[in-house]
């Protein structure tokens, strides 16, 4: 719970170390001008004399400007705008009089770890409480001024009105009086009883829009401080390797290069700490990058020098064909499969993938007078601060971490190696340093999405009813980045789209396999649901096809049984993204609802043109529910185009519809990039790709006609950034199957294998018990692999 204290009364600011003289004065004003002051000037958090600041989130200045301190990182999801909307409604503030500033990493703000699509869920109520307390103090101050009843004083559009007499006082004029009043007890606050809201639920321009359109929002890469040096670091191409020796003389001859220094290698697992390497320090980025090219380095490549992603894939596939650790079971899978009329098998493969944030990692660190200040695009400034304190043996109180704007995050900027590099260099060199990652650095030294092999086996009875389902997932544990001897994923990872398999199949077995880690792994957008939904949403489609049923009707049929699946009662260690399963159940009714929503809007069942197919996928992740229906056209040369996609999201209450819609458009493109391009390979321990010429991302040309649908809901507002991404790849692959009869089980999609495929024709819904559209896999046989 967030503690509400009156900063202006208690002079909280001075006690919190921000008066320590080491605060970087970057102020994010609503028009985005970043006044990058020298250190020791000013702070971004807390009240200045004459302001009303009853809590850490909201400050009102005597001019009436309401300043909202946003404690979550802005990386394109629009959180600064959405938080402002929530606050503005509760406070009844006027939009043009709102300013937003970014919070430093500090526990007093609560959870700042901006990942997993949780910002609104965590902070909607907190912000309303914070705003309501400000509103009530302003109303009380007006009542005091007018010697009137508080009940007669009401905040309306940045003023307080005395209702009986229609007298008004603007917020600014009430600041002085209000700042002497006690802060209302949060339990006694009267939250707005909205009959209608002005901001929440409406389309609002992004609060940083004007600045963004002119390139004035300061990203990490854009920060420059007087006297700052630039560093570019050559890291060992193999994870776990280190420099044996190096010759810097060539680098030192490059104009602008000032110094070459080795950052010590961290023994794996490296966690948030630097990989180590040879840092070239220069007067500008380019000189540092050019100097690096002249380094002569002899590497000790370490234990992963033989890692080969092709061999690794084969090993993991073998593992997936063996019994793993059983993590969920029901009925008797083996006897059910033995008795099945039809058996199906599929090996699903997802390669390593990189985050490829458009802004590569970058960090600025200042070490002066024994104190460290960092400016960086980080998703988690508190954790960055903790990690820096440990790594550099400093007190957290002596460290300031301020998030800049982020040019994408996707989980990459939840990891703090680049920040630690900057901190280490600043401390070692005693000054101001900016660590610049090139795109090549980013692709080759990322925290990758793990490679994954999944084996599915299923059985149908003679009526096409699914009676047996076994899903094995094999991927190296993300925890291996932090801890040794982590060879199998834990419950939190398996909870991402695997343990919560929602189909009502009486004989069920879920197993997790073992995989040795060889690279740094990290959190990614869509999480492990990216792989798990790809396999499970495809395999149910395989079952429907084998049964000769319409896949949508098939899903409806086997979203059977209780509407809320009680995983606890089934003995499953399901972590539910850290939230109570009672409060946020696995609600099959909501899965059915998003599917029906999508079918209605996408005209499921309408005829298509030759060589077209329609596919669907439905998935719950990050507590939200998503469904996609994709129409694909597969040309004779195998090339695919996507004439239409319908994407439905049920994320509970819709706070900022335009940004959710933008995130859905974004999810489609991110999901298409994942399905069509994302493919990172490793040979002799080193990543083979390096930049956007050989690591492709989605571009304008593949943009489909998009229809985004948000389900109206009164439920708690849950995630929007992650949950719609996982359904894109399986919906696309199911559409390709409908168009061609070819089943895609390997990503990225190899369109070459679709060449000359016979047109299966329009995927009209099959009548119940109609003959199968494709040959049913013979009992005992395996479906062909692709």
């Amino acid at each position, binding site marked *: 719970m967030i503690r509400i204290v009156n900063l202006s009364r208690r002079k909280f600011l001075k006690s919190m170390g921000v008066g320590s003289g080491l605060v970087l004065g970057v102020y994010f004003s609503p028009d985005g001008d970043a006044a990058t002051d020298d250190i020791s000037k000013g702070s971004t958090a807390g009240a200045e004399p004459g302001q009303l600041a009853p809590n850490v989130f909201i400050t009102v200045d005597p001019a009436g400007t309401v300043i909202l301190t946003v404690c979550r990182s*802005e*990386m*394109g*999801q*629009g959180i600064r705008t959405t938080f402002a909307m929530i606050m503005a409604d509760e406070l009844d503030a006027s939009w043009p009089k709102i300013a937003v500033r970014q919070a430093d990493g500090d526990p007093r703000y609560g959870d700042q770890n901006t990942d997993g699509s949780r910002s609104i869920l965590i902070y909607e109520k907190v912000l309303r409480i914070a705003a309501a307390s400000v509103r009530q103090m302003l109303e009380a101050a007006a009542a005091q001024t007018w010697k009137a009843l508080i009940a007669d004083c009401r905040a309306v559009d940045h003023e307080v009105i005395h209702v009986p007499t229609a007298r008004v006082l603007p917020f600014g004029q009430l600041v002085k009086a209000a700042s002497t009043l006690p802060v209302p007890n949060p339990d006694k606050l009267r939250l707005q009883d909205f009959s209608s809201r002005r901001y929440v639920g409406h*389309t609002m*321009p*992004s609060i*940083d*829009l*004007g600045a*963004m*359109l*002119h*390139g*004035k*929002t*300061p*990203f990490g*890469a*854009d920060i*420059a401080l007087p006297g700052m040096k*630039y560093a570019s670091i050559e890291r060992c191409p193999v994870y776990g390797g280190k420099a044996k020796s190096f010759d810097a003389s060539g680098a030192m001859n490059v*104009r*602008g290069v000032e110094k070459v220094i080795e950052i010590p290698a961290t023994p794996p697992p490296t966690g948030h700490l630097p990989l180590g390497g040879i840092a070239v320090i220069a007067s*500008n*980025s*380019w*000189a540092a*990058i050019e100097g690096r090219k002249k380094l002569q380095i002899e590497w000790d490549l370490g234990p992963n020098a033989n890692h080969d992603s092709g061999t690794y894939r084969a090993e993991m596939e073998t593992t997936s064909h063996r019994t793993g650790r059983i993590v969920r079971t029901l009925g008797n899978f083996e006897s059910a499969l033995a008795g099945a009329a039809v058996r199906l098998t599929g090996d699903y493969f997802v390669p390593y993938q990189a985050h*490829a*944030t*458009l*802004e*590569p990692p970058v960090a600025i660190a200042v070490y002066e007078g024994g104190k460290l200040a960092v400016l960086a695009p980080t998703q988690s400034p508190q954790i960055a601060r903790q990690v820096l304190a440990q790594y550099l043996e400093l007190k957290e109180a002596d460290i300031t971490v301020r998030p800049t*704007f*982020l*040019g*994408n995050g996707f989980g990459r900027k939840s990891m703090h190696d680049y920040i630690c590099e900057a901190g280490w260099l600043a401390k070692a060199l005693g000054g101001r340093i900016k660590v610049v990652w*090139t*795109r090549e650095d980013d692709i080759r030294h990322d925290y990758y999405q793990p490679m994954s092999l999944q084996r599915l086996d299923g059985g149908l009875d003679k009526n096409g009813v699914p009676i047996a389902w076994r899903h094995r997932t094999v991927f190296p544990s993300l925890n291996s980045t932090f801890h040794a001897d982590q060879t199998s994923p834990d419950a939190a990872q398996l909870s991402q789209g695997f343990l919560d398999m929602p189909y009502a199949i009486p004989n069920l077995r879920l197993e997790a396999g073992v995989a040795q880690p060889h690279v740094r792994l990290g959190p990614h957008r869509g999480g492990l649901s990216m792989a798990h939904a790809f396999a499970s949403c495809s395999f149910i489609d395989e079952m429907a096809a084998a049964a000769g049923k319409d896949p949508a009707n098939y899903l409806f049929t086997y979203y059977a049984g209780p509407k809320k699946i009680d995983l606890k009662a089934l003995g499953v260690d399901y972590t539910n993204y850290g939230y109570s399963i009672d409060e946020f159940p696995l609600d099959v009714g909501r899965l059915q609802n998003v599917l029906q929503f999508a079918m209605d809007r996408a005209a499921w069942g309408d005829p298509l043109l030759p060589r077209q197919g329609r596919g669907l996928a439905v998935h719950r992740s990050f507590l939200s529910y998503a469904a996609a229906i994709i129409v694909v056209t597969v040309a004779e040369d195998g090339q695919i185009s996507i004439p239409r996609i319908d994407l439905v999201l049920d994320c509970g209450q819709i706070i900022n519809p*335009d940004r959710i819609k*933008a*995130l859905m*458009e*974004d*999810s*489609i*493109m*991110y999901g298409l990039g994942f399905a069509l391009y994302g493919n990172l390979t490793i040979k002799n321990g080193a990543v083979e790709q390096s*930049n*956007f*010429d050989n690591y492709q*991302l*989605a*571009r*304008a*040309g593949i*943009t489909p006609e*998009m229809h985004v649908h948000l389900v109206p809901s009164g439920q708690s507002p849950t995630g929007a950034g992650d949950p719609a991404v996982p359904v894109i790849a399986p919906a696309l692959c199911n559409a390709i199957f409908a168009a061609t009869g070819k089943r895609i089980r390997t990503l990225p999609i190899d369109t070459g294998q679709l060449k000359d495929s016979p047109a299966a024709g329009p995927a009209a819904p099959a009548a119940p018990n109609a003959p199968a559209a494709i040959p049913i896999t013979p009992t005992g046989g395996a479906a062909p692999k692709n």
Partner: protein
Amino acid sequence: MSALNINGKDHSVDADPAMPLLWVLRDILGLTGTKYGCGIGECGACTVHVAGKAVRACKVTLAEASGHDVTTIEGIPDSHPIVHAFAQLNVPACGFCTPGQIMQAVAFVKQKPDPEDDDIVQAMQGNICRCGAYVRIVAAIRQAVGADR
């Protein structure tokens, strides 16, 4: 010393003539609206205008740009129809690619004031938006050329 005219203002730059214009703008002149995304001309985040044409600033050296008029995002006024349309459609998400998208679009509509949709998509194919805002980017350009007519 190299002479550059940027957004109508003359600058004299003391730097390696081989330095890409991108780093001259960002690190030496402090014009950070032009972004680094790839350094090899694959992402378009550093798009600027040199002598009126859209180029990738990472692929143009200081020597090559010298003597030419350079326009960066900082030189595009709020009143430009492309900027206006980007605002109306709330195009930017994270905003990192936005300056490059706008610079590419501004040069494109000047050269082709009456484009078909396919022309727009083709013109923007070299500008990566990792937030996937392509549908809005294309719609904004379409709207801007409509407003121009």
